[in-house]
């Protein structure tokens, strides 16, 4: 009884003995599953709250309602007039669309689905953390409001997890807007459909009938509150672990019932899902390099089962504060503007579209705010900047420093308090053993592993780039924390004068924001506020010194500003190379630059980058990312550096030489630009010829 002398109030005084089942606002929902029977769990009686205005319907009744709705009937009528087809044909088409789309949520399927999920989750993950207060809020809301769930989207796991969490907490299972990809998978497609997935085509442009069926299908379920509706405001899985800019189609369709006063209110719930390790990490890395993702198939899934032997760490799911669309739009939209036409005909007003844009951005920023930053993503940030390798101790020191900065910026950092920094680092290196390892002299370095089978990459460059991009995924996870102050830091660091006025600084800031606006998410119209807040943050963390509304450059270039600058340098360099490619390597016909599709432009720019990497002119492998090139191209388009035109229904782009030169010159002031050899590219022969050696 050695413990007798100790305080009887304390039962575990060794911190190592305290499990991390509960942590801050999070609780782990996986542990009890590891201890109890899965079967009983799957057959437990569920006590779901129901929306109070709900009238119980079967999935078949929902379909019937959609088909007979004013909106779809009107669309059918219009389609008949346009196509001169008999009504029965068009109706049959509408039925076919609906059959392809509709979910068939059934409790039986859900239970067996849950059974399978638990097995998978237990194999893959250590803990699945959920913030319980968020769940409590949702429980309270389900009875009162129709609910829209908008999770962040970085893995296929997202929607399995969401359904699982809702199952776990006895909440009504969400129905999920899924892309058609899964539909090709036998059994899995069926299982998902029966577990609440409904399928929408990625683009249906001008197909009015499809649009009508889709809109009505979504809206009737919102109005009747049949189930919470889940969709991804980013539109698709982020391959880069950065948030994608919001898409508004589904959001508009989902909120329209409020604007048209079908229902009193809708609650929108942002959900942030953070992974310690992303299941698709290497697939993403190679996809970014241009290797197409393998088509989803059941056999592919079975082949991938060896992945079950791997450890993917923890997951944090944070349910954000639900937003009442009524309160959010108070004073901003006038719903009575819809009074003058039948509600199924008129479209949304400008006010409403602006509001939807604002809300979409707000959702993404909320996702980011509640992302959990793991030690590994900070390690990745440091490792990305020290490509030659870094000692474990140095890494620990740097990570400690980054942690302090991130925490000052308001990031939530998942750092086990009871462990030493080195232990934490080693644990993370172990978790990501496919990316890094500790070499003999305690130096942390990237490992070389074979690319996934489908990638067929033999090229050494590709393999190295793959590793780098994989690492960059995890660094990307925290970039949103730093991007705004970094744009100030970069401006300060690259200033050649002694002093920089705030106006000039702001101009530089807004230029960078425009450039980066596709790679990062900024709320339109908030530039000034963001700028001021970031400047204040930087001055308060003594990164930047202000004297009489001017930045004193000498005092302001320090470790902090340098670190920020370097963090974002690859993006600016990537854009600059893109500009160079567009400017100097672009054939023109009688003075007019040749128009090409975006795909080809981006591919060629990537080829040029590859060559530059091989030549050793540039060092950042992540510049090979097609995603970065695409985003750069889009930003340039919005800045007027590139123009679009439609030919044969597809979009062709070409540079606006003058404007683009301006942008390029301005951009060059922010980075150390390499001297470029003159190169020519031939996509068909896949060759890049360097015309003159450096």
């Amino acid at each position, binding site marked *: 009884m050695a413990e007798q002398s100790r305080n009887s109030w304390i039962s575990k005084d060794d911190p190592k003995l305290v499990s991390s089942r509960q942590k801050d606002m999070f609780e782990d929902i996986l542990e009890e599953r590891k201890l109890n029977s899965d079967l009983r769990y799957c057959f437990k009686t569920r006590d779901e709250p129901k929306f109070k*205005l709900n009238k119980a319907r079967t999935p078949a009744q929902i379909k019937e309602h959609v088909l007979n709705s004013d*909106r779809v009937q*009107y*669309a059918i009528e*219009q389609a008949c007039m346009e196509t001169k087809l008999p009504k029965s044909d068009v109706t049959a088409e509408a039925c076919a669309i609906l059959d392809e789309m509709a979910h068939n949520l059934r409790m039986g399927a859900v239970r067996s689905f849950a059974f399978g999920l638990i097995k998978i989750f237990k194999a893959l993950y250590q803990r699945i953390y959920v913030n319980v207060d968020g769940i409590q809020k949702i429980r309270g809301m389900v009875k009162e409001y129709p609910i829209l769930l908008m999770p962040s989207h970085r893995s296929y796991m997202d929607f399995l997890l969401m359904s699982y969490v809702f199952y776990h907490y006895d909440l009504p299972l969400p129905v999920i807007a899924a892309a058609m990809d899964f539909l090709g998978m036998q059994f899995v497609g069926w299982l998902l459909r029966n577990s609440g997935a409904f399928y929408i085509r990625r683009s249906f442009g001008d197909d*009015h009938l499809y*649009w*009508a069926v889709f809109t009505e299908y979504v809206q009737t379920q919102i109005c009747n509150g049949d189930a919470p509706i889940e969709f991804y405001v980013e539109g698709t899985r982020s391959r880069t672990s950065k948030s994608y800019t919001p898409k508004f189609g589904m959001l508009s369709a989902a909120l329209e019932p409020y604007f048209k*006063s*079908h*229902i*009193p*209110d809708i609650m929108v719930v942002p959900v942030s899902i953070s992974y310690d390790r992303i299941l698709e990490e290497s697939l993403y890395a190679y996809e970014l390099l241009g290797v197409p993702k393998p088509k989803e198939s059941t056999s592919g899934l079975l082949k991938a089962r060896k992945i079950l032997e791997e450890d993917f760490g923890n997951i944090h799911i944070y349910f954000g504060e639900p937003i009442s669309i009524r309160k959010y739009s108070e004073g901003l939209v*006038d*719903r*009575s*503007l*819809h*009074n*003058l*036409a*039948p*509600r*199924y*005909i*008129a*479209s949304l*007003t*400008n*006010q409403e579209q602006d509001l939807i844009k604002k809300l979409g951005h707000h959702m993404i920023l909320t996702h980011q705010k509640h992302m959990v930053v793991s030690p590994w993503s900070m390690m990745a940030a440091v490792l990305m900047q020290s490509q030659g390798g870094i000692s474990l101790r140095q890494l620990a020191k740097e990570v400690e420093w980054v942690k302090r900065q991130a925490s000052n910026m308001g990031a939530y950092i998942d750092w086990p308090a009871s462990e030493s920094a080195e232990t934490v680092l080693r644990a993370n290196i172990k978790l990501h053993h496919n990316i890094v390892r500790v070499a003999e002299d305690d130096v942390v370095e990237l490992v070389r592993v074979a690319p996934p089978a489908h990638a067929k990459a033999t090229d050494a460059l590709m393999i190295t780039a793959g590793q780098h991009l994989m690492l960059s995924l995890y660094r990307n996870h925290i970039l949103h924390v730093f991007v705004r102050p970094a744009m100030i830091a970069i401006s300060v660091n690259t200033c050649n004068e002694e002093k920089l006025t705030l106006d000039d600084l702001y101009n530089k800031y807004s230029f960078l924001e425009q450039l980066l606006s596709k790679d990062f998410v900024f709320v339109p119209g908030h530039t000034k506020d963001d700028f001021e807040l970031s400047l204040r943050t930087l001055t308060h963390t003594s990164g930047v010194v202000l004297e009489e509304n001017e930045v004193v450059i000498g005092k302001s270039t320090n470790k902090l500003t340098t670190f920020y600058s370097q963090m974002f340098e690859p993006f600016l360099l990537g854009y600059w190379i893109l500009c160079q490619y567009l400017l100097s390597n672009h054939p023109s016909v009688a003075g007019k630059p040749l128009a090409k599709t975006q795909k080809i432009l981006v591919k060629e720019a990537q080829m040029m980058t590859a060559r530059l990497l091989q030549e050793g002119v540039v060092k950042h492998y992540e510049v090979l990312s097609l995603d970065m090139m695409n985003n750069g191209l889009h930003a340039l388009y919005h800045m007027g550096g590139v123009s679009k035109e439609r030919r044969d229904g597809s979009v062709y782009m070409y540079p606006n030489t003058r404007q683009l030169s301006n942008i390029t010159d301005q951009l060059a002031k922010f980075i150390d630009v390499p001297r470029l050899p003159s190169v020519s590219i031939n996509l068909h022969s896949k060759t890049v010829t360097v015309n003159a050696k450096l």
Partner: protein
Amino acid sequence: MATKNAIEDVAHNEKSRLSGEMQSLGKICNIEHKMCSNSGESSNGGLDPEPPSIPKRRQELLKWNGWGYKDSKFFVNKDGHVEFTGERYRISGSTMPGLRDWMTKTIGISLDQKTPSQPEISAANIPLPVKNESFVADLRKTSISNSDDCQDRLFRAHGHTLHEIFLLREGKFDRIPDLVIWPASHDEVVKVVELACKHNVVVIPFGGGTSVSNALECPLEEKRMIVSLDTSQMNRILWVDEKNMTMRAECGIIGQDLERKLAERGLCTGHEPDSMEFSSLGGWVATRASGMKKNIYGNIEDLLVHVKMVTPRGVMEKNCQVPRMSCGPDIHHFILGSEGTLGVVTEVTLKVRPLPPCKKYGSIVFPDFECGVKCMREVAKQRCAPASIRLMDNEQFQFGHALKVESKSILTNFLDGLKKLYITKLKGFDPMKLAVATLLFEGTKEEVAAKEKRVYEIAAMFRGIPGGADNGERGYMLTFVIAYLRDIAFDYYVVAESFETSVPWDRCLDLCQNVKERLHRECKDNGIQFPPYITCRVTQTYDSGACVYFYFAFNYRGISNPVHLYEHIETCGREEILANGGSISHHHGVGKIRKQWLRKTIGDIGLGTLQAVKQYIDPNNIFGNNNLMIGQNFGGVVQQEAANVLLPSKL
């Protein structure tokens, strides 16, 4: 002598042009001779044997701080049950055993927690009158009856909004009329308005005083003398013309008197607003009133054949009484709904109909409100609505049920039990969901029978089953009794009010649901601790839409400023109504309480038009009651946004 006098009066009023024709119309009848007497103080035309049912000193007959007659009110009797006093109504002298429980359960009333009204407001707390001496001097020369007694003035300073009644019970008024004038004829009105114009005195017409839009409230900032022009003494029926089935009466006649006197001749106007016991003919025209039985008789604008209005510019009227004419915009529509901003309505010709030989109540029970609305829509579509058809939601049905008077008959109780059993057990209706439509049929026996058959057939299509005449009748009783009920609610910490709107059919159901939902939400957000009582009924049907009526009450124990809070929540409710495609008002009017939405409703050009008319007719704002378009800033930017909606959608 008196008869002759009256005839001359009429002849004079009609500028003699009618008199010749009138004599040729054999059946035209001047009924003045029946009611001639001299009440002494009236100067002319008041030779009336039967005094107006509402005396000049209204407070002698009517409650000074609540609804209706002094002798009629709800109270909690010694057994702790709610009882209704007096002998005027069918429920007078009866107890309603279910009501107390309903009140405690539904809105959390506690019988020990009372908030009785303050004692009558004494002269010391009533503002001194502003006197325009020259006006008063000129008025004295005319011998038109008037009074500056403070209680007379106070009584005409308010209508019956929650705000006003609460002020009477708990507070005081800062601005009330300075003088009450009772003109006895059109000519006296002309005289009064002339004098008011001459001396720049404000005239606020007062009819039955049943306004629920703050229309009678005196503008606080008004420094001129304010005269309340009480029309109650102008209550004669001038003639009845059975050839054309019309009748002409003075503006001050109140609904029940008009119908009673016409009934003596086997006629009726059929205009029965819920306030008909007190509201006046002139008031109906000036507020665009609507009657319960409008399906047969029409609303006031449908009944109106001719109207005379005294304005600062002179008398506005048409020169003929024709069923319709194409003559530019109808000037009657400047008068209808003008809410006392342009002049005083003095005489009105309405259509009359023969009294229906058969009158029958009925009701239909629906499994839920949605079925009920669908049925109402179908009835409207087939244009076979009975005189009245109203759909009460479940909350209102339960309320009506609680008003059931104690039944002495065991048989009735037994039959009621059977009926309930049939509906809930056999038909499987959920008593917490079902909705009830109340019906009133009028016409000949055959017409009623045919209509009944048709309506019940349509009802069956929407799972509706006949629920008996009793339920129907009680539903209608509720609307008359509700105003009395509010007074007892006041005694127990409850504030209550009704408001209404009109809405297209396709939005009817959503509007009912969303407005109720919004009110509940606002109650919660504003910290009201007891469940509020919120209910609605679809109370009128039209070809293209319906009229929806809301009751809203809450228990304000624990809340410091209940009226302010009530108004805030009602404002939210109205915002929700407008956002749901509803209107600013179906029949209560705008007054001051809903002015904030007038511009939005009729647009800048519409508002400007009204103001231009006001500017022409009354440039000095003599009719300065500050209702409707008066005092609204003009010159706002025309909204760009509106064009948006008309863009074709993605469809």
